[in-house]
């Protein structure tokens, strides 16, 4: 088990009180796994990614533990974390295109970074050059300033530098968002290739773009308003999502070949709740078309089908009802809400999922 996160809670200190950006998150990433982390802006996905490597001043580690390769990661201790940064955990920051220092050559930047880890650039230079060539950058990129590189090239340069010490975990935060499609594809495929070549043991890819994750991720985890809503393998998530939020998110994506004349897509009305004082119960309740009285209770993040975790009362009901009818799904019994499986809810969810998959 490469990474396991237990009940992690991260808050932002503000003048009006603490904002719970990551609220009790528990998950694991296996060796050689690429986990996609998706959600709307402000759902806490970047905060979760950042907290695994650097808890900055305005962030507060409220609780929870992180374990990497069997050893505890001291995320709240900035000094102790220094030893692990870049060696064990590394990050490709959001807006990596502008993460490079404009006054320094790419090689100088790498040299400084390595020096801060107590290493010499000369030692890793041959490997550095090999990887630079691998990602299709010119060999003299080390002697170039960031402004001499295009956006896609800068993104690739940042990737090479962050993974230079073969970290166990790489956090890729919105690496494809600012790029055009051909660069998106190139960078996406490089991420999987870095994993295949063993430069990175496991990876968390943070993005709001589910279609990119469908291409490169093994598992996908969706967050909403600081909480986990659903986690499953990528194909299950795309084809048979259980949480209404994931379903709505997927059905609002325009795909190539879809035109407004044929099928008018619908967005999700409303906005996520404020995290300053989040309402009790399911946080998607207000925007959810299926919400019912049980939703005022907080739904647990439970494994409804093997390898498929969902935090939704209705999905739990549906699976409990569906498993009874289909009699073959060896589903784990949901911890609650199995009693009132109302029959009319099942078909409506099925119909919606079917519509999304058309």
């Amino acid at each position, binding site marked *: 088990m490469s990474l396991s996160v237990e009940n992690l809670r991260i808050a932002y200190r503000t003048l009006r009180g603490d904002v719970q950006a990551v609220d009790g998150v528990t998950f694991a990433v296996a060796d050689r796994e690429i986990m996609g982390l998706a959600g709307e802006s402000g759902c806490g996905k970047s905060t979760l990614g950042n907290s695994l490597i650097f808890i900055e001043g305005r962030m507060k580690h409220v609780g929870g533990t992180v374990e990497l390769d069997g050893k505890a990661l001291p995320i709240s201790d900035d000094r102790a974390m220094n030893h692990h940064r870049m060696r064990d955990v590394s990050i490709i920051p959001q807006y990596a295109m502008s993460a490079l220092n404009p006054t320094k050559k790419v090689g100088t930047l790498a040299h400084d970074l390595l020096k801060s880890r107590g290493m010499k650039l000369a030692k890793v230079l041959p490997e550095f050059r090999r990887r630079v060539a*691998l990602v299709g950058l010119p*060999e*003299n990129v080390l002697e170039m300033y960031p402004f001499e590189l295009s956006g896609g090239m800068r993104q690739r340069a940042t990737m090479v530098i962050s993974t230079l010490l073969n970290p166990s975990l790489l956090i890729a935060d919105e690496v494809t968002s600012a790029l055009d499609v*051909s660069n998106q*594809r190139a960078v996406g*495929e490089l991420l999987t290739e870095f994993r295949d070549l063993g430069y990175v043991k496991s990876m968390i890819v943070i993005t709001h773009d589910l279609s990119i994750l469908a291409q490169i991720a093994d598992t996908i985890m969706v967050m909403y308003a600081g909480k986990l809503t659903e986690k499953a393998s990528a194909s299950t998530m795309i084809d048979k999502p259980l949480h209404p939020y994931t379903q709505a998110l997927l059905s609002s994506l*325009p795909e190539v*070949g879809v*035109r407004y004349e044929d099928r008018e*897509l619908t967005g999700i009305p409303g906005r996520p709740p404020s995290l300053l004082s989040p309402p009790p119960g399911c946080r998607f309740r207000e925007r959810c078309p299926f919400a019912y009285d049980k939703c005022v209770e907080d739904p647990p993040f439970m494994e409804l089908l093997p390898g498929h975790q969902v935090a939704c009362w209705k999905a739990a009901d549906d699976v409990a009802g569906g498993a009874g009818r289909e009699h073959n799904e060896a589903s784990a019994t949901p911890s609650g809400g199995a009693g009132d499986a109302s029959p009319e809810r099942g078909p409506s969810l099925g119909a919606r999922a079917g519509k999304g998959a058309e």
Partner: protein
Amino acid sequence: MLELDKVSKLYRSGTFGGDFKPALRQVSFDIDRGEVVSLIGESGSGKSTLGKIVLHLVPASGGRVSFEGADVMQKKGRELHEYYRQVQGVFQDPFSSYNPLYKADRVFEMVRQEYFRDMAKDAWQAKVETALETVTLNPADVLNKFPHQLSGGQQQRLLVARALLLDVRLLIADEIISMLDASTRVDVLNMLVSLKRRGLGILFITHDLSLGNYISDKTVILRHGAVVEMGETQKVFGNPQHRYTKSLLTAVPQLHKKWAPFDWSVNASAVPASNGSPTLAPSTPPGAGQPAEAKRYSKSSLSPLHGAKEEVGAARGTHAVRAGAVLAEDAPSGPRPSLMEMEGGRWQRRRRRATLTEVLAESAPPPLVECEPGHLVAIEK
């Protein structure tokens, strides 16, 4: 309604602005009433420059932009004021389009001061509310609020509502969806569809092919400032002819289909051209597969690491690398090499710098041929 005829734009570059960099090369197309034309291209393809030229924000270096038959470039003063009554733009970043110190609906007040000074307060209020309803916003939700109290989608729709207060007939929408979340994106797209049904012409500038495909009637694909393929959307996307269009289409991430392996070295002549387009010239085969960097950064190939490169060559089997090669290939086509000449075994800059007209002539794009009715493709070199 709007006609672009061989519009070119050269930006000055170099230390003293003595060089020219072609951003647009003889782009021609037109937009009719109630038509959505999507302009698709990568970053740096000149698509935003084109939007700015139509909005009279930057002057064109050559060609003609005409709106209802009148030359846009010649407009000034009173005429330009009237032009903006009919043509408006909305830009990529809604968060920086507002002044954070003022309430968001101040943008409406600015329009009133500029164009509707005589209108009574009640009538104006009613007009604002109609405009907000058209963009599917609830007036109570957005009026009297500061920009930070609104979501990105609301801000973007508010800006479109501002344009609708005028008798706008053409909207330049420059990447207006890109900064929005997936859940609000579709609302803005659907709103554009309803505006189009009311007869508004829209120039939809984007790098996202699926968005362009969803909404547009016509598609223009730009590369390095020149049109590589244009025509009715279904034809361009259903039957792409240019190698570049194909490579873009295979790169679009889809939910239910993995990235198809795309042979980046394929050339147009190898693909059976449908409807018989004999005019498509055979393209030169090498280029694509081999790293373009090697050609351009010739200095490095002399370095002692030259050997190391061969060793890496084996690893260069990935699409990613090849994608990079296709992208880098022929980037500064046209004028750059001809500004240099060989002297004493080294490339040197010419004594005399090329003039604007020379660069314009040199940067002429490959001609377009019609491969089927309503579908034009650039001849590949």
